[in-house]
Structures are given as structure tokens and as C-alpha cells.
């Protein structure tokens, strides 16, 4: 799957933060330390795996320092795992990367959910109830609700 992601020319960046705020998924954070002339400053940094390639950062940048470059990437979904899951495959914002054509079952494997428990889970994708065989698409939000402990 081909996606775009931003590349920065830090030399002409004025650290205004317009790109980071324009990003609809907060994939950019003003935390890369560097120098602007002689001043210590902070610059936008791309958080790994969060970018959806929409290009809003580049469109919003007045200094024209962001260029969208094509990169090959896996599909990204946000997972709201049930209590007691293994979250190691998820990033700090609960996003994970999966190959094209993955289903909700693959998500359960990713978070190492006990198959017996999996049968009891109520599953939603983008807020709609669905079966475990549902094929996922890039940007989906997968939620699990465990009727015993809650979700």
C-alpha cells in the first residue's frame, strides 16, 4: 500500500507549530530539538505509524518547508483493547499496523486475546457492531467490550 508522509526542511522552519495543530490525528509533535540559527529550538517530528498521509500539514505550512513523499506502508488501525490485553504492539495512542486484508480476528491475535474470552467480546468497528470476520480498512477504529469487566 502506497502512502505519503511529510518530510521537513528544518533549515527554513520557524517552529510556528501550524502543521502540528493542522494534523487531524496529531501525528506531528513539536519536540524535535535542534537549532534555528543560533537559537535552541523545537521542530515538528513525525510520530512513527500515526500519519494518515492526508497532506494537511504541508498545505498549512506558510514557510513551504514540508514536502509530501511517497512511502510504502502498512495499514493502520486504532485499537481499543479489552481489559488485560497485551498492548505491546500498540503505540502510545493505541494505533497498530497490520497487513492489507486483515480482519478483526487478526487484531485479537495481535493483542494476544484468549480465544475463549474472544467469543464473549462485543466488537465494533467505527462504532458499529460487527462480526470477527470483518475486513479492516486503513484508519478504522476497532473497539472491544467485555461484558464482564466492561470496555
Amino acid at each position: 500500500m502506497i502512502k505519503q508522509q511529510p518530510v521537513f526542511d528544518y533549515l527554513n522552519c520557524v517552529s510556528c507549530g501550524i502543521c502540528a495543530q493542522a494534523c487531524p490525528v496529531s501525528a506531528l509533535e513539536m519536540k524535535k530539538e535542534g537549532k534555528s540559527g543560533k537559537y535552541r529550538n523545537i521542530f515538528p517530528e513525525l510520530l512513527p505509524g500515526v500519519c494518515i498521509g492526508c497532506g494537511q500539514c504541508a498545505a498549512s505550512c506558510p514557510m513551504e518547508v514540508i514536502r509530501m513523499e511517497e512511502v510504502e506502508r502498512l495499514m493502520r488501525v486504532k485499537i481499543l483493547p479489552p481489559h488485560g490485553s497485551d498492548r505491546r504492539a500498540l503505540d502510545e495512542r493505541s494505533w497498530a499496523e497490520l497487513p492489507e486484508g486483515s480482519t478483526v480476528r487478526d487484531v485479537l491475535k495481535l493483542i494476544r486475546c484468549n480465544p475463549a474470552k474472544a467469543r464473549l467480546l462485543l466488537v465494533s468497528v467505527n462504532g458499529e457492531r460487527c462480526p470477527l470476520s470483518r475486513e479492516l480498512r486503513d484508519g478504522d477504529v476497532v473497539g472491544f467490550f467485555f461484558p464482564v469487566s466492561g470496555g
Partner: protein
Amino acid sequence: MNSFMGKILRVDLSTGRFESLDVPQEVYEAVLAGKGLEAWYLYNNIPAGADPLGPENILAFAPGALCGTGAFLTGRWTVACKSPLTGGWGDANCGGLFAPAIKQCGYDAIFVSGIAEKPVYLFCDGKTVELRDAAPYWGLDATEAELALHRELDPVCRKKPCIALIGPAGEKCSLISGICNEGGRIAARSGVGAVMGSKKLKAVVLAGARPLPCADREKVQALSRELGRKLLKMTLPNGLGVFLGPGGRAMGHLPYMPLDGSMTSLMFRQWGTQANTSLAITSGDGPIKNWAGTPKDARLMDMVYNPERINKIESAKYHCYSCPLGCGGKLNIRGRKYAEFDETHKPEYETIEAFGPLLLNWSMDSILQLNELLNRAGMDSISAGNTVAWAIECYENGILTKEQTDGLELNWGNTEAILALVNKMVAREGFGDALADGVKRASERFGGKEYAMHVGGQEPGMHDARNDPQLGIHFVAEPAPGKHTVGMGIEYGAMSLCDICSWAPPARLHPKSRDLEDTEELALISKANACYTMLVDGAGGCYYGQMMGVHMWKLIDYLNAAEGWDYDGDHYMEIGERIQCLRQLFNIKQGFDPAAVKLPDRMQGIPPLPSGPLKGITLKNKEQVAAHWRAFGWDDKTGVPLRSTVERLGIRTLTEVTP
């Protein structure tokens, strides 16, 4: 298409109801967004005589018109309400990231009325609006609560939320409290934090991700690019900070006050607003020893507050949204004397001046700690500093006894006692409880009114009107009295307003003695200053952009490009005048008497200072304010806008428009 979202959100905390209302286009044309939109809405919707801490008061949050268009220096948001400190119009202005977040939720402003039964926070992500239980966060300081909210909400929000919230000072309805965001940026003035606290609203959490509209984004971006490239090239050599004090001394003795807009941006980029501290101590701009001292009392203090010392512990610069200048910074204060925290935002000039020279405090380390303490508590450092200065002077003169001050020896420059007192004010304990509502209320309770420096109930910002008499006009004539941000004579020289406004007198180097007169020309200068500042607030601009001058930060071109209009500067200045007039009408409606506001004798130079750059100066403040009101078309005795002025500005028809 223009840059407005076209909607406002109305929240009633008493009933838990939300309404999204359409704003007619003619309102935006008349007053833009930001403070203008708030003035229009609050004038219409706060009933006369409303209790500032009651359910009828409305707390407004609004970004400006240019926010999110790509225009630089437009990340400011304005909070407005009826001020519990003055009883009239109250507003406060803040940077950080909150301004675009309001627009990204789809609104040009959020208006909160009513009082919640228990502590709540408002959550909005552009699709849903909810009031959520804030019990876990109530009682936490502003920075801790913000971190806790991020910990809870970041994983479940697609977009990282932006949070504006109050600290313990606001929760306890301290009348000098403000509203914080970004771990220490604070909209501090007018007691807006107390209003939020009285509503039991701990925080406003916004996680919307809507794209922000703009008529001609490419043109706006081209204007920003031009400014950004200029700023990138601007640097000063290190080590120059040591010359600021002597430079200020020279400025103080020069017969005129020079200032250039590009120089301001250079200094703010190099040091931040602290650049002004050393200058102010020696030039007469900064008040010393509760506004009664002279630079002799603070001899060599400019070396203590040399901004280079702060730059040495700066770990990174801090920029508000859409700011290429970056006057803020993060300081590493771990292990320093008095420090109870690891990091703090770089203290602003106002904070350093209010807790340094104003109290004859020689310890920079104590100010770093006080800065973080007040930021976390959500308390206004200008008001707190003035109040502590009053307490010290009263103690020194025997009006306050050691029993009354809970055993604190409040002498000039007693750093430990100052720290202890501020801790008490924040916690509202003992003697601190009486001081947490500002200097006016404290002096009414204990006496010593002649030492209480307040204008209409609000403590003045840290610039001396005897050095810049124009400032004295705005301290008194401004609908939110005591604010230092509305206009200065020095600033007028830097802005070149005559190039965008046909009636603004040309700025030229002039003897300082001219500023002491009450001429029509000076009244036009103060009117132009006030109108332009209101326009900047309506556009959501930063005062440091304003100070760069109209040739660097091209506000008129920005507005025309972003809104798809083709108006000249005079039209925009009239928008500023309309906003100012609406705010004054708000005051009149609320029974606030503008003619009763006066500058304390000491600040007017009665008696005049015996030495230093302000030696022998006495202001003609009352006459100057009358001339200022005349220039606005307001009655020069009462400050009430004349019927003809209200008609000329079309305010009658504007106030009949409802969302």
C-alpha cells in the same frame, strides 16, 4: 468563503443544555471574531446587575478571525466575562494552542453560563459536546490536572486534546485568578479564573480536527513567508544583555523615547519579554518599591535581572500557535535555590518586575519558583505582586502587625517572607486569604488605601505612566481598567499607524514633555492605539506582532486576504472603535461608572518623585482621559458614548441582531 466557522456554542451548566447557534455574517463584518464577537454577545446576553460570580454571568472563550488561516502571530484566545474584580467588562488574553482548537471544533466562540451542581469539565471533539465529571481533577494544580486529563483522554481521542483549565486559585474563587493552558500559559487578568471556578467548571477540553477555512490561503501564506524569512535572519550576538541596563539609563535621560518595531522583535527573539526588565529598572518604565521608588533604590538590580542569566538555563524556546518569534521558553530549574519544581515556563517581564524591583527582591531564583507556583495555582502575577507590595509597605509603616501577617516579617526584599506569603495566598490560608482577592479588597479590610495601587479595582500592569503618560490614559479609560496592553506612546512610535489610518497623527521623535499635555493630537494617538489594539484582538493577533509595526506584520493585508474583503485601514480602525465602544456600553449597562475610575495619586506623580528619570513629573491624567473620550465621541465627563457615536458605528442595529 472567509475564515469564520459561522457558529458559536452556548453551554448552560445549570441545565446541562448545549446549543449550537448560527452567527449572522453582518456580525463578523462589524466586529470580526475574538473580543469583538464576545463584546457583541455579552452586551446582549448578560443582564444588567448580574452577579459576576453568579449563574447569569457568561464566560466566553474565543479565538480571533485570523486564527488558523496561516497568518503568523494569530494564536491568541480571549476570555471575557463580567469581571468580579472591577464589576465591569473583564477580559484576558492568552497564547498556547487553545485558540485553533476552538475553531477546529467548529465554533468561533464558546459561551458558558449557569453553575454546575458539582465540578465538571466540558468536552468537545467537533461531533459531540459533553459535560463530564471533574471530581478526580478538582483540587489538582493546573499543570497536574492538565497532565492527568491528557493521560486519560489522549489514548481515546484521534486528535490530541487542547485543554484550558483553572488551578486551585480559580477553584477557590480568588478574584485575581486566571485560566491556564499548556502547563503555564495563563489568561490571567480581570479575575476570569474566579468566574470559571464559581461555575464549577474545571476545564474545557477540545479535540476537534476540522479543517480551518480561509478565503485566499496562498496570499496569507505568502505574507507570512515574507515575515518568517525576515525573522529567521534576525539574531543578536550573545552577551549583549549586560548592556540593557545602561541602555535603559541612557533612554531614561534622553529627552525623547526612541523605539523601532524591528528592534522589539529582535529583542523578543533573543531574550523574550525579559529583555525589558533591565531596561525598565533603569529607564523609569518599571515600577520600583510599590511605585514609590527610583532606580537609586534598585541600584545594580538590572545586573541581577540580566536576561542572559535566564537564557543560560533555557532548555528550549516555546512558541505559541502560529508564532515564528518564540518569546517563550522552558527553563530547567531543578536544584536551584527555592525551586520545588523541575521545569517552568520562562517568567514574563511582568512577573519578574512584579516580584523583583516592585518588592526590592534581589533573588532571581525565588522568581523562577514563584512563577511556577503562580502558573500552577492559576493566579495573576501582576495582581499578586502589587498586592504583596501593598502588604510589605503596610507592614513597614506599622499598618499591619506581625500577628496579622501570621508572623511573617514583611520587609522590602525579604525573599523568604514573600515566598511564604504567596504560598498562603494560593492556598487561601490565614493572612493570604485576605490578599487572594486583590489589593483593593485587602486595603478596604486592613487600611493603608494610600499604598494600594489599583485602578478601578484591578492592579495595573508593570509599566509606569509617569514614564509614558499615554499608558496612564489607557489604565483609566479602558473598559477593563488597569490593563497595560491597550496602548503606549512608545509603541505608537514603532507601529506607524499613520500609514494605514488617515486620521492617526504621524509618529515622530518628540520631547517627552509633549506627552504630558492634554492636546487633541495626543488624544487621537491614544484613540488610534486603542482602536488598533481592539482590531488586533478581534483578529486574534499577538501584541508583539502589533509592536513590530504595520510594515512587518501586515494585519490589514492579512484580513483582506483571509476574509476575501477589500477594505482599507480606516474601515478596519472603525471595527476596532466599534469593539471598544461596545465594551464601554457593556460597562454602562452594568452600572459601572467610568468617571469614578482614577489613577492612584502615587502613579500620577502626586507627590512627584525626588530623583531619577521620572523626577518631578506629575500627570494631567484626568484632562488627558477627558480628551481621549472626546476623540472617541464619548461624553468627556461621564465616559458614556454619545448617541451620535453609537448611531455612526451602527451599534444599535448590531445589538438587535441575535444568533
